């Protein structure tokens, strides 16, 4: 196996290692409303320094990292989750449980894939279900 394929396999294993690694259960809901469980990294952090300018900023970044191979497996989707801005379309949604045991639902607003190692980082924003 060449190094690139090895890296892709290693990425998938790391993102799926909930027993001994940093991975957690992450649920993704696609555009037709089908929700499926995956495994990956979740990140929810206050960002005090803007990485672009180095200036002090006040923000909150929430993201998840998932295996691209896992997303495309079993026909769950034919495209990567991404930000949807059309009002006549559903949105890609992500939910996961935080360290306090609270489950929060988020909307994907930006998708940063790395097809080289097979990982996609989904940047998340607040979401509210219909009343």
């Amino acid at each position: 196996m060449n190094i690139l394929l090895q890296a892709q396999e290693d990425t998938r294993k790391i993102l799926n290692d909930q027993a001994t690694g940093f991975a957690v259960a992450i649920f993704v809901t696609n555009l037709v409303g089908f929700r499926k469980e995956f495994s990956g990294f979740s990140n929810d952090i206050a960002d005090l320094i803007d990485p672009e300018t180095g200036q002090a900023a006040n923000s909150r970044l929430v993201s998840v990292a998932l295996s691209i191979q896992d997303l495309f497996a079993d026909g769950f989707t034919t495209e990567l989750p991404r930000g949807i801005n059309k009002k006549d379309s559903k949105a890609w949604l992500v939910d996961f449980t935080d360290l306090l045991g609270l489950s929060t639902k988020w909307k994907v607003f930006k998708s940063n894939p790395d097809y080289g190692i097979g990982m996609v980082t989904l940047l998340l924003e607040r979401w509210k279900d219909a009343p």
Partner: protein
Amino acid sequence: MGLAWLLYYLKGGKMPLNLLEQLIDKQDNFEVIRDQIALILKLNVEEQVNVLAPLAGKDPLDYELQLYTEASNPIENWLNLNDNSNKAPIVNVWVDGMNYEKKSSSTTGLNTQGDTTYNIDVYGLGISTETLEGHDPGDQQSALEVQRGIRLVRNIMMASQNMILQLVGIVGDRFITSVKLFQPEQENNQSAKIQAARITLSVGHVEATQEALGEILESINVQIERDSDGLILLELEFPS
């Protein structure tokens, strides 16, 4: 000061500084105006929400604003939202700077005329929300919210009732000179969709400074009389 001090100075001594004699315990007019702007906004919003909207059968929440003065981070609560968080547009009033006109001020500078610029920053929050057709995107919602906040602030501040901000004798005029909306940067990865705008309000007003208390140099008693031939006579007496 007297002859003694003059002789002391001529011998190379330093003149003592003439200090203010009164405590500076009143607000300057630029501070009064800042607080008045916030009060005008607050009371008018309350009137819209509590009285006028219900009378018209409209949703009071469409007329609500959260008001701050000189806040450095008024949107902090929005970064950690919960179901009870207030999501109404946030308004923050702060002083940007003053320009004083030398020519229209008094010679001593005790009474000064000028313009103070106030920034009224408006923030709007958007939360992507599911709908029957699909969803309302949070970024668009935040833009609509901040523009709604601008509408409320502009209509209140430019109403005829507030032509001189209801500060007679202090304010000469007020005018919104610009409204600037800030597009979110492409690399903005924040989870909270917030858009901002700045309303620049220029207020012409007077500013007064305490007057130095006079020092009695000499006391003079003057008696004025009219002589029999109509001449005005002055009799001066120097008690000291």
